[in-house]
């Protein structure tokens, strides 16, 4: 599974970081940063939560 982030949609809410701290961070302006494009299985639930909760629909999890 691969995470895709459209950073130009991000509204800096930080919801993804709360949901999956090992996968997402924010820069000083709050814009999300992808730390790990292909997170290990144990982080996938958190990523799915981030996809669902991101208020900008900026995150996708795609099958490879």
């Amino acid at each position, binding site marked *: 599974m691969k995470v895709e982030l459209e950073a130009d949609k991000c509204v800096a809410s*930080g919801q993804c970081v709360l949901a999956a701290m090992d996968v997402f961070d924010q820069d000083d302006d709050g814009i999300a940063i992808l730390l790990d494009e292909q997170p290990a299985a144990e982080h996938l639930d958190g990523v*799915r939560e981030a996809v669902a909760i991101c208020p900008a629909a900026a995150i996708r999890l795609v099958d490879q």
Partner: protein
Amino acid sequence: MRRIVVVGASAAGLAAAETLRREGYDGTLILVGDEPHAPYDRPPLSKQVLAGEWDPERPALRTPDDLAGLGLVLRLGVAATGLRLADGTVELADGSLVPYDGLILATGVRPRRLPGQGGHVLRTLDDALRLRDRLAPGRRLVVVGAGFLGAEAAAVARRLGCDVTLLEPAPVPLAHAVGTEVGEMLTRAHLERGVDLRCGVTVTEVTESGVRLADGEPVDADEVLIAVGSLPNTDWLDGSGLTVADGVVCDEYCEAAPNVYAAGDVARWHNPLFGQSTRIEHRTNAAEQGMAAARNLLDPDGRKPFAPVPYFWSDQYDMKIQAFGCLRGHDEVAIVHGDLTERRFVAAYRTGDRVTGALAVGMPPRVIRQWRQAIAAGTNWLEAVGAREAVN
């Protein structure tokens, strides 16, 4: 549970539908929406879409593939017109009856209007495209209502070169929501950009040439945007037996009746974190509450109260405003980081002896996060405000 119906195909309804599938529900899932479009996002409508920066397709909430993967029966372009609780059926505008075992109501709100003819509102993609087509350098736009929506639209219209008049009944815009200090800071930002902001005026009517004020004075305009708040879409629930009082009334689990839940802008539920009945029109709440409602519907024995720290953002000019918690009705505001005049600050809000809210502009995430944390934990005001020295 073999048939779940979700009414309202936007942020809250989609989040509910996706959560049902993620939690393993594999029965029939019907998503009903009265708009013709696939689920799309509203916040960009008063920002990138109005500014003409985004194509109309960009606010789509999911790709067609992602949507198809949910295995939904998508009933778009058809409104729900009635609910028969006793039979467990939803009536649709095309005359069909849709039976359900579980139901999630996510029909959102619609804009309040003003007497008179014409004037724009800004709620749907079609509204945004219509208004965008009318904005061009030198056009005169009157915005009625300087709440977040009206203020965002005013900021975009200025950037497009329009002459903008912003009319607001309160003495200071948004003061009831964010306090006088922050309201005045926002006022200055609009004045500096050349918005003709007029406070303490009430618009009684939209006319052919603009609007008319309560004292009879006309304000001329080419276009009028009415941004004076919204009304929950609950008319179709009249006679259903559900309690409706400025929203569908729910308990702390977001349940309105057995196996019937509500989420998003239309839901009024009891938030145990602040001990009050609230209805919230925030994008993040729509998703979180849609998820919570779906989980509680599927797992009645493991139900969890929905107790979020509300979160809201707004973009105006170069400012990103972020607000957490419950600001309304606060007893005190303190600037706990930065400086209001530089438009880089965190304001903390006290209700009783607790920190209940925070509003930030131009601050890094790590500073903001600790305030969200303090609100979630119900931290004592003196403790939180005193503790700030350590992180400054």
